[in-house]
């Protein structure tokens, strides 16, 4: 019985191959985009883990200072107490031409010590040579090449097992290069410890112990929000794909109602039928999921360079390595497709389960029935939006921000049928002539069948408007911010401190204002913090992008009595002007102002240069911002080049710096633009599949109108017009939703994810472009059904009137 029943059930697809193709494609699209995003995330996370593993920092707990660094003596005390610890000093060092991340470790204690010794031996160097002056540097071959080109003092050992962009050195060499003697960034607590030791909390109460599982690298911590953003986009694409699937499954089961009734009357139990339908869906889901995974892999490989650019632009954390096939990714992708399929089919399967034996084939909701269903959907939609606002008001954090966005999008999608229907009713009032009236009424009658596709279109358009507005607002703010922040006309970096001092003297003689750019890297609550020292100058007072400040902010800061902090540091730790911050042990300063600092993921503070030099007299003095009249810029650059042996790339004018910054910004949002376009493509496909699956149901509605003298060509034009009308109404409704989305991204998500709040700007031309794109998608989607209709054989239309039909 099972085999015979299965054959009957499957025979449906033989008669509806297009429907089968739609279902499989919808599932594959949903699975593809989701798994592409997951593959990218997995690859990036694996890259961070690999880097932590290669640097020997993985799997170990960390002791971090509340603020500032750990004195070497403190480390020695703890070692004497019997604790096995590995000290680490991290920072950025500027060599002749380039900056490098440097990590200083104890070459005898560090978990990677054996690997470093082996690598040194391979270079025919005694292992202990790295400990002796001038000190050896270990780096990935690519980084090693750059290091060798930038300096000639320290020999470099190439180690392919180290991550790119980081140089590893002995602690003493690193502290010399970083000019941070007697300071450690953190201590790794090695896994094997002697029993019975005095707890670290007693020995070093000023240090915080972060367990191994929570001790993510700075990169992993910073990029978490980015990956959550990406996951949210993947989920949106998945949901849009499921809209296609839901509609197709519902239609396939509805069309098989007659078959089900017959089978049941022939004695096939409902339990068996439901089981077979579920099995059919599971097989289709797995097949489509596999196809989706293959597509997802290709998409991920294509998007990875964009993601790399984004991560490098936002966090300076490129994904190292190429895409690899992970069993966990395959299994989770298939499980997600299977789960999504059954979620999309749940309502139809439930209706099937409850269908009475003698139920007639269901008519699509029309008239009052449709109105009731629209109203019920709208009530649920309003409830979802209200729940979203409740979540936003009650909880904090990125997850609640995304939950709010999800509820807003779902609510709006549920409200859509009622709003479109109302919009069409209003439009119908202006209809003139029978044909026009019929067109409006018929369009309204299509809403139940088209609503899922329209919801998909609404979500895709709103996401485009929202994300587009966010990116464009960000760009506009960023450009304005660059104008304020980069007020010096020329930026120079000397190759050494002595050259820096010489340059400063020369500039003074020439009467040119040179603003030194000097800083000290430190840590605050386990995260990097850079402390800048600034020389009081009218340009700062005039240009610096302050967001909030006390009235005498500059005077206080210049006198060394207060400091400025960047927005992200303020938001992360709830700091406000008037509050006090401990920059380092025994260095507490009141906060006089907060400034915007876009594009920088880390905390930053600004103190007077004198105050900084009092604490850190040896910080490098190589970077200068020079003030010059526009007509003097090229002459000044030429003079500096003639006077000093400074590499060409170390002298740049303001325009070049701005152009470079904007180029990085634009690269940063490459992945967003790609995902936006893909989601819109999926929504367009949803529209096409809806129109195609409705094709058979449309003929009985169109044939009588044709019989009354409306030509096939006119009917075909009506199909395109109808699609245009629905897309236009949906696009108009997507605008407020998109703007709400943009507001959430700028005021909620960005604040949580990056630590900065951006003003929102409106871009009507972008909306117009998107509106036209939506109309184009609608025309393309309707083109195929319209073409079929314009060429349909009258005999096909006449079948509608056949009494045997």
């Amino acid at each position, binding site marked *: 019985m099972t085999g015979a029943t299965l054959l009957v059930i499957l025979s449906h697809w033989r008669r509806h191959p297009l429907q089968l193709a739609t279902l499989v494609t919808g599932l594959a699209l949903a699975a593809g985009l989701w798994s592409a995003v997951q593959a990218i995330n997995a690859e990036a996370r694996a890259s961070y883990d690999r880097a932590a593993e290669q640097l020997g920092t993985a799997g170990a707990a960390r002791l971090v200072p509340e603020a500032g660094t750990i004195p070497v003596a403190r480390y020695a005390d703890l070692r004497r107490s019997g604790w096995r610890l590995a000290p680490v000093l991290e920072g950025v060092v500027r060599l002749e031409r380039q900056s490098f991340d440097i990590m200083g470790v104890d070459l005898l204690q560090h978990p990677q010590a054996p690997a470093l010794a082996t690598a040194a031996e391979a270079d025919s160097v005694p292992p202990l040579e790295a400990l002796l002056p001038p000190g050896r540097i270990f780096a990935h071959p690519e980084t090693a090449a750059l290091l060798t080109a930038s300096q000639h003092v320290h020999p470099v050992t190439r180690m392919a097992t180290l991550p790119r962009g980081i140089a590893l050195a002995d602690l003493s060499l690193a502290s010399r290069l970083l000019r941070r003697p007697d300071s450690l960034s953190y201590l790794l607590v090695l896994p094997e410890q002697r029993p019975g030791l005095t707890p670290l909390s007693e020995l070093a109460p000023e240090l915080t112990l972060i367990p191994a599982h929570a001790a993510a690298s700075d990169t992993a911590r910073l990029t978490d929000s980015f990956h959550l953003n990406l996951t949210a986009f993947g989920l949106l694409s998945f949901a849009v794909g499921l809209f296609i699937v839901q509609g197709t499954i519902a239609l396939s089961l509805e069309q098989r109602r007659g078959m089900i009734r017959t089978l049941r009357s022939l004695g096939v139990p409902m339990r068996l039928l439901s089981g077979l339908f579920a099995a059919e869906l599971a097989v289709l889901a797995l097949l489509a999921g596999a196809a989706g995974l293959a597509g997802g892999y290709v998409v991920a490989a294509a998007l990875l360079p964009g993601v790399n650019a984004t991560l490098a632009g936002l966090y300076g954390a490129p994904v190292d390595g190429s895409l690899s096939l992970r069993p966990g990714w395959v299994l989770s992708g298939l499980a997600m497709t299977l789960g999504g399929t059954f979620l999309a089919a749940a309502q139809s399967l439930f209706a099937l389960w409850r269908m009475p034996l003698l139920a007639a084939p269901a008519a699509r909701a029309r008239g009052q029935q449709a109105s009731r269903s629209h109203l019920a959907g709208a009530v649920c939609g309003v409830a979802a939006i209200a729940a979203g606002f409740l979540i936003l008001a009650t909880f904090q954090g990125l997850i609640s921000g995304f939950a709010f966005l999800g509820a807003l999008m779902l609510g709006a999608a549920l409200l859509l049928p009622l709003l479109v229907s109302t919009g069409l009713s209003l439009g119908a009032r202006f209809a003139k002539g029978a044909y026009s009236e019929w067109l409006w*009424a018929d369009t309204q009658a299509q809403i139940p069948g088209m609503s899922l596709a329209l919801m998909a279109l609404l979500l895709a358009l709103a996401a485009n408007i929202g994300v587009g507005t966010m990116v464009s607002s960000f760009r506009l703010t960023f450009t304005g911010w660059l104008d304020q922040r980069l007020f010096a006309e020329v930026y120079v970096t000397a190759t050494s401190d002595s050259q820096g001092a010489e340059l400063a003297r020369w500039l003074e003689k020439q009467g040119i204002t040179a603003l030194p750019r000097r800083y000290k890297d430190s840590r605050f609550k386990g995260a990097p913090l850079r402390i800048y020292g600034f020389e009081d100058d009218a340009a700062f007072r005039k240009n610096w992008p302050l967001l909030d400040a006390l009235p005498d902010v500059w005077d206080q800061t210049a006198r060394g009595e207060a400091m400025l902090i960047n927005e992200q540091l303020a938001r992360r730790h709830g700091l406000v002007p008037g509050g006090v911050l401990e920059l380092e042990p025994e260095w507490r300063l009141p906060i006089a102002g907060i400034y915007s600092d876009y594009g920088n993921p880390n905390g930053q503070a600004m103190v007077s240069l004198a105050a900084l030099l009092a604490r850190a007299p040896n910080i490098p003095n190589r970077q200068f911002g020079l003030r010059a009249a526009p007509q003097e810029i090229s002459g000044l650059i030429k003079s500096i080049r003639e006077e000093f042996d400074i590499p060409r790339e170390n002298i740049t004018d303001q325009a070049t710096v701005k152009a470079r910054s904007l180029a990085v910004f634009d690269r940063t949002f490459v992945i967003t633009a790609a995902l936006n376009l893909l989601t819109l493509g999926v929504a367009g496909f949803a529209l096409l599949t809806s129109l195609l699956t409705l094709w058979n149901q449309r003929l009985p509605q169109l044939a009588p109108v044709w019989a009354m003298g409306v030509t096939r060509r006119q009917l075909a034009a009506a199909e395109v017009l109808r699609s245009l009308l629905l897309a236009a109404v949906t696009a108009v409704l997507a605008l407020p939703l998109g703007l709400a989305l943009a507001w959430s991204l700028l005021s909620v998500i960005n604040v949580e994810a990056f630590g900065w709040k951006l003003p929102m700007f409106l871009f009507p031309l972008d909306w117009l472009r998107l509106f036209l794109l939506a109309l184009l998608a609608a025309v393309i989607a309707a083109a195929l059904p319209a073409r079929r209709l314009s060429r349909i054989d009258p005999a096909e239309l006449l079948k509608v009137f056949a009494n045997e039909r």
Partner: protein
Amino acid sequence: MVLKIRNVTKSYPGQTAETAVLRGVSLDLAAGRSLALTGESGSGKSTLLHLAGALDHFDSGEIEIDGTRLSGLGDGQRAALRRRDVSLVFQQFNLIPSLSVGSNIALHARLGGKWDTGWGTRLVDHLGLSTVQERYPEQLSGGQQQRVAIARALAVRPKLLLADEPTGNLDETASAAVMELMLQLVRESGTALFLVTHSAAIAQMLDHRLHLQHGTTA
């Protein structure tokens, strides 16, 4: 003559060879007269009705509607003819579900630019539909839906009314009532009625009867 059919043939492509459905059918129908076409299932009744309504193309022969030869007409001209001069009533009613009863009734006449409010009101009253004009087809009984279909067809004041088993979905009483109404309105408006039916009783109510067998008239 409103309808003149001469030696019309029509074949449909079969799996192996063409299947001849009509093999040289001829008939005439004058204004204000009615003709019942009977025959077995598959004898070609509906095909002939569709050809007479300019809905499909015949292979050979000629059909004239009020002097207009169909053989030379293009798609647009056929559509124009249907909008103005030909109306159809089907067994399945084929009302437009998205339009109210009132809009359904007016639709065809308005498409042909022939809507006459006075005549429309008379039809509605006569067919007992005045209280249901604001409703939608799904809210009506089968008999009511068929009366709406008849009202829609007659509202255009067609020269030729084609009806394919118009009472096939109705019970005997409702069927007789609908037929009487239709015939009365046809006579009143001077329309020629060409009706396909299986029912001998209904055929007896019309002026002329023609039996179709294996694609030819008996």
